[in-house]
């Protein structure tokens, strides 16, 4: 208890924001501790807010409550053994994490996954992107006070999880990919399921938009809230939909295509103002674009092997590699250093949530408490990935 108190004062003393001299009525500056147990911090994020009334003077994020030392674990596991661990970082987009890791190791080994594996990887990853965005939308809307979208999105996300479960037996931490390709062939009816899902979810996305996009309160709550300019976004290393909403048309799937994204036709949505509303619109369009990719991919799955020729014991040559993919939250990078043994010498994960969260402070300066909640939601952080 005592320790916690000290901790708070320490953290706050670092918030040395200027306060104007107030000779007359001195309204108290309130220090509020939001989290780690708070309905709107999406996990165990703790934000210390310095408030003047309801106006935010400064914030300080305290993270690490979910720190599991993933990078340290990686150094003590073989390449194959570490694969399931990456799913536990961004647990709402586990498939993307797996894709990034597997491809990084494949790059280090200089092998290439066969085309059929790539197609299935793309389908699953894009499904996962939709699932992640749906979860984001539900919780974000709930933060802003709209209860109902949460249940709609979770209902529809369930269909994706069912496909995952049928494919690999797991719903959340799927461990769907292996280094060099896939372990499992698709189940019978996979393609039909995916096609059905695409047909099913299109009108559902319209349904979400009906509830929110034109809603006056929603617009008022999100327009010009948490604005970040393209310049600031780049300087802060913000990636993903947050960067695109600021007007930077940059998506790793297009900029440096991995897997076989170059074969598909899709658009990169961008916003103009870089506010919460634009980020919302960008993500909604991204969901539709993902559906487009899935449609193309599922129509063109080639026959063939699903696993490349990878040695039983993975022992990459001495060297290092950085590989990054466009995860639902932004650029997810893996920096792997090999010393020639079966265990990676060092695995560094470049987590999009962690870097994006850094932008919270400048996004909420001068805003109100309610906006802090909206901005945390719009950054779409997953604490498992922030803390690793």
């Amino acid at each position, binding site marked *: 208890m005592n320790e916690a108190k000290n901790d708070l004062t320490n953290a706050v003393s670092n918030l040395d924001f200027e306060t104007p001299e107030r000779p007359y009525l001195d309204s108290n500056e309130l220090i509020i501790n939001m989290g780690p147990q708070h309905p709107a911090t999406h996990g165990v994020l703790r934000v210390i807010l310095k408030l003047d009334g309801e106006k935010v003077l400064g914030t300080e994020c305290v993270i690490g409550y979910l720190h599991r030392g993933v990078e340290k674990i990686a150094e003590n596991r073989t390449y194959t053994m570490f694969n399931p661990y990456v799913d536990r970082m961004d647990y709402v987009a586990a498939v993307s994490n797996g894709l990034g890791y597997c491809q990084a190791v494949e790059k280090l080994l200089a092998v290439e996954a066969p085309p059929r594996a790539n197609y299935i990887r793309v389908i699953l990853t894009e499904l996962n992107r939709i699932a992640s965005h749906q979860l984001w939308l539900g919780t974000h809307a709930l933060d802003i006070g709209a209860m109902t979208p949460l249940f*709609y999105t979770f209902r529809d996300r369930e269909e994706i999880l069912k496909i995952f479960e049928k494919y690999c037996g797991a719903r959340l931490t799927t461990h769907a990919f292996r280094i060099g390709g896939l372990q499992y062939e698709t189940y019978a009816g996979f393609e039909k399921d995916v096609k059905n899902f695409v047909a099913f979810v299109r009108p559902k996305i319209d349904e979400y938009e009906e509830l929110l996009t034109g809603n006056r*309160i929603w617009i*008022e709550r999100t327009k010009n809230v948490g604005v970040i300019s393209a310049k600031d976004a780049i300087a802060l290393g913000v990636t993903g939909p947050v960067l695109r909403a600021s007007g930077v048309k940059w998506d790793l799937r297009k900029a440096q295509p991995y897997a076989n994204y170059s074969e598909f036709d899709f658009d990169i949505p961008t916003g103009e103002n870089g506010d919460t509303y634009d980020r919302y619109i960008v993500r909604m369009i991204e969901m539709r674009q993902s559906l487009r990719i899935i449609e193309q991919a599922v129509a063109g799955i080639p026959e063939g092997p699903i696993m490349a020729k990878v040695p039983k014991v993975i022992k990459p040559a001495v060297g290092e590699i950085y590989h990054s993919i466009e995860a639902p939250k932004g650029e997810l990078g893996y920096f792997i250093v090999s010393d020639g043994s079966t265990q990676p010498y060092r695995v560094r994960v470049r987590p999009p949530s962690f870097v994006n969260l850094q932008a919270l402070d400048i996004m909420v300066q001068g805003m109100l*408490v*309610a906006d*802090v909640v909206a901005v945390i939601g719009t950054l779409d952080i997953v604490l498992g990935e922030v803390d690793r």
Partner: protein
Amino acid sequence: MLESLKSFLEPSVARTPGEANNQLWALIYVLIIFAGVSVAVMAMNWLERKALAHFQVRLGPMRVGPHGLLQPIADAVKLLIKEDIIPSEADKFVFWIAPLIGLLAAFTVYTVVPFGPSQAVSDMNIGILFMLGVSSLAVLGVVMAGWASNSHYPLIGALRSSAQMVSYEVAMGLAVVSAILMTSLHGMGLYGVSKLSDGTGTLSMIGIVQAQQEQHVWFLFKFFPLGLIAFVIFAIAMIAETNRAPFDLPEAESELTAGFHTEYSGLRWSLFMLAEYAAMIAVSSIAVTLWLGGWLRPFPNLLAGSAWDFIFALFPGLTFLGLGAVAFLGTARMPKHPYFKIQTIGLAGFGVVLAGIGIILLAIPIAAKVSNHTLLNAATTTLLNVYWFVAKVAVFMYLYIWYRATWPRYRFDQLMRMGWKVMLPISLGVLIVTAIVGVLL
């Protein structure tokens, strides 16, 4: 005793217990209203959970009783036996008294709510003023709770609440005044103004409804669209006054965890909830009284005559029969598994109770029609008055749930801006235009 009973059921006497200075009857009325509101709050609790659930593609409570019908009782028992925690740093006395003040304010308001021309505890000649005044005291409970908890989230909730209620009370009051203004015009119909009257209106709740009866129009439609605008302003302000979505900032759970009642638990917390729902019903009854003709049935003048009276008199019974039919439908759709046997029986029993009430309520007007007995006639009238009033209030209750399921929450500054820059000027404008129209027309 019977004479006394008759005298109060007789609509021609049309006296409230307060007016007749009959303390015993007043007490009985108070007890009936207290019980009725408490039951209504429980029903509302169940209804909100169920309706909200169905808005959100889920089922809501299903375990406690058939379709969760006993859930409110289970909740109440749980809250009663829960540990009552008072934070050690809290201001004990204020913390203790805060929920009581809210509750007191919410229930005192019902003194003047007119369920019929004589079905009110008392008919004060400042009725509406009394209602607004007492319901404005409810904010004190919220503010005291927030402050006494000695914690930051409740404090912010209390600050929001006080600012919000004070701002919206102004617009609300002006909207009410424009309705009161209409009571002074004695003409008939939508734009009717009579030069013959002395032009004095009334603040009495019963008087306001009677004015609508005399003018043959609900004030909602009077001077269309002026009455409608004032009503809409009131309808918005009353949501803000009762801290309900989308104006539930004082208890916004995603920002302030639970706002002013963060530190409350168990019984004390349930008192806040009781007060909130009671206040919702109370402000809805103000709206019904002022704009929707209170206890008047639809078209009391256009569709006048004993035949129409009789047809409308069947409504309460038919409503309950309908509810009973819904319950039976539910029974029929229950799974046939033995596990659901008790629930099926329970639901059927509930349906029987509802249908029984429906039959009794049907029987009363029919018997009155046939026998034309004074007492039966009086009972029919009372029944109808209360029925139509409650039915109108129920519509508002449903709207409350609907709003909550649909809209995101406003932000504090937006709420304030809307209160002061939109609602206040419009209500002021409506008031002035109403006055001008009333004088010139």
